[in-house]
């Protein structure tokens, strides 16, 4: 189970034999996926193929029936305190940002470090300032989320995740709710993280990002992983008809 990934990395996220249903709908069908430390995996696929569900299941925001998920060798525990601890190691960035609406930007970023990591307030604020600077929103620290643009909010959400010093970060369509002119400011931050060696699983429709930043592309349709390849392989020689069809629709826009 802890064999290195194909390119010799140490496996960090291992999903094996994962199955999940919503009632009669079989959303995730026997998913096997290993993400190595420092690897960036982009998940592509048509709407409704189960990409979000996969991300949410890895973070245990959703339950699953069958199979196992381990993070850094540790299996996902049942609901409770140990699950909360494990979640702290898995960062998640949502399509709709989900910044805490009643807290300032600074407090959004310091909440986790103070409450979960038990960092003292002053240290947490220094860390938060550093991270806000890194994502380029340090000037907004004392504002509330609703006072920021979507792109700024999403960068704060990334900083909030980073403040937990996660082992892996999940991104579920982080730029889909943004106006076009704000997409790049978020993708730039993500590319920076990828270069610095953050382990990332990214659901996105941004093909440019997938080509540039991904080590691997995983293509899903109808709850199954149909392809798992390097970006060059996938974009130049997709093997399945579903993937060819998907690419022809995306790339003609």
């Amino acid at each position, binding site marked *: 189970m802890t064999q290195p990934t194909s390119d010799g990395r140490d496996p960090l996220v291992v999903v094996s034999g994962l199955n999940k249903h919503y009632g009669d709908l079989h959303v995730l069908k026997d998913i096997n996926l290993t993400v190595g430390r420092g690897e960036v995996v982009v998940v592509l696929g048509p709407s409704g193929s189960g990409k979000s569900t996969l991300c949410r299941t890895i973070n245990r925001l959703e339950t699953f029936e069958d199979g196992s998920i381990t993070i850094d060798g540790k299996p996902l525990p049942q609901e409770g305190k140990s699950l*909360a601890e494990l979640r702290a190691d898995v960062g998640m960035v949502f399509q709709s940002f*989900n910044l805490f*609406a*009643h807290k300032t930007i600074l407090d959004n970023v310091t909440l986790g470090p103070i409450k979960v990591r038990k960092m003292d307030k002053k240290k947490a604020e220094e860390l938060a300032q550093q991270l806000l600077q890194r994502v380029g929103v340090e000037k907004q620290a004392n504002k*509330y989320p609703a006072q920021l643009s979507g792109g700024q909010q999403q960068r704060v959400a990334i900083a909030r995740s980073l403040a937990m010093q996660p082992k892996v970060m999940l991104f579920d369509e982080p730029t889909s709710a943004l106006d076009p002119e704000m997409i790049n400011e978020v993708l730039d931050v993500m590319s920076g993280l990828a270069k610095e060696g953050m382990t990332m699983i990214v659901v996105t429709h941004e093909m440019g990002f997938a080509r540039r930043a991904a080590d691997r592309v995983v293509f899903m349709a109808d709850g199954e992983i149909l392809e798992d390849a390097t970006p060059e392989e996938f974009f130049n020689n997709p093997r399945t008809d579903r993937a060819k069809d998907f690419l022809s629709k995306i790339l003609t826009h």
Partner: protein
Amino acid sequence: MSTLFDQFSFWSAFWMTIKLTLGAAVGSLILGTIVAVLRLSPVPMLRFLGTSYVNIFRNTPLTLIILASNLVLWAKLGVVMANSKSPDFFNTNNFRLAVLGLTVYHASYVCEALRSGVNTIPLGQAEAARSIGLTFGQSLKEVILPQAFRGAVVPLGNTLIALTKNTTVAVTIGVAEMAAMLAKVTEDDPGLLNQAFVLTALAFVVLTLPVGLAVSWLGKRLAVKR
């Protein structure tokens, strides 16, 4: 008019009404929050407890609850809420039983007001809280309840106004509040009744009108911008 104040202790009745209101407001805010937390809990048994509480106490007439606090809790079960050797035992005991009854009844409304506040919060807030590793309790305390209270200012205010007026039910167990004073006037000096009724109504308006105004102002000011 002066007899109303001298002989029938208008002011002390007014003060008693205020004390009942404040006591039960604090009590029902605490108890109602606990019941709301039960209803939000991921544990089915706790949710069932919370739901049952609301269904039972919201659907029981307040008069029945107040009477029961005296006739059942105290008289039958011997629950004593004051020092039984004190010369003021009956007054204190009945006052506390009334606060208890009012608390238990209005907690169900506080719970429902809070739940309506919770419904103003997008699901993503709780998910974000969980995803940074907060436990269920921490998510409630740091993220959900603060936003729920802000979203529930208006229904909570309405509950406070209803509670203020509902304190008059305490007359049934002999608490010397405004309605008890009116009953005494009716018996002892019916000539004063018109005055007494008008002044009592005015007293309640004085208590509740500012609450209504404050609530609509606060409701706007505290609303969480999304």
